[in-house]
């Protein structure tokens, strides 16, 4: 069988890709997808540990993460819609009101 470390390495790589996506993407929707990528990488690590330890706690945790992801997607996308409606743009750099 495949050692646990391999799965973890794959999860780490996907997580890093997601991280890069969050920092570099200008399209707010792509940033969102990158966040989903990171969440999935975490899921993969959970499942791998769960398999290794023979406990199903990780499965439940992934279930929770998926719920959170769904909720976040719903709210996040509605934020995007509101933003686009007000600013007519999906460029994250034009959303810079978070300063004095």
């Amino acid at each position, binding site marked *: *069988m*495949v*050692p*646990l*470390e*391999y*799965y973890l*390495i*794959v999860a*780490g790589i*996907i997580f*890093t*890709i*997601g*991280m*890069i*996506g969050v*920092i*570099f*993407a*200008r*399209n707010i*929707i*792509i940033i*969102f*997808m*990158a966040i*989903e*990528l990171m969440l*999935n990488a975490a*899921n*993969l690590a959970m*499942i*791998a540990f769960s*398999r*290794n330890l023979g406990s*199903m*706690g990780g*499965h*439940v945790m*992934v279930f*929770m993460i*998926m*719920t*959170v*992801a*769904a*909720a976040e*997607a*719903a*709210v996040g*996308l*509605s*934020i*995007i*819609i509101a933003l686009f409606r007000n600013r*007519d*743009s999906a*460029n994250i*750099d034009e959303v810079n009101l978070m300063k004095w």
Partner: protein
Amino acid sequence: MELAIFILTSLVAIVAALLVILQRNPIASVMYLVTTFVAQAILFIQLRAAFIAILQVIVYAGAIMVLFLFVIMLLNLRREDFGKDIKLKYKPLAIAFAVVLLIETLVVINASMIPAQPGADLPATFGSVQGVGRELFTTYLYPFELTSVLLIVAILGAVVMAKKKL
């Protein structure tokens, strides 16, 4: 055989993940994201997480991604909506950071002594709908119930946010 399938699917997952963030067109990004998710679902099956794998396909690849597509279509985003490409001053530094993060992850994985366990003695219900369900409704009942609250709040939040006028 097992290892071969692992290598193949994980390569697909990584490459598709890279393509997600390199694409200009968000619709293409979504397609690659779906690819990554499906590849991960295969990895889940390999890890004997059948229920989660199915959830991954149905909820993630199905529902959430359709939501993404729907929003993209709804907004009808064009190229110029993203504005000009502003050069980030800290681009090299950020790449360096990402590399450092990856190296750190690998170091941690390498350094941790995880005893490998044989897979043969797992119960038959491990990862099945029945097994996960039992866990959810016994040990994790309260967190499970709380997720329903979370979903309600999310629905309300989404409605409030997306509404034109309140």
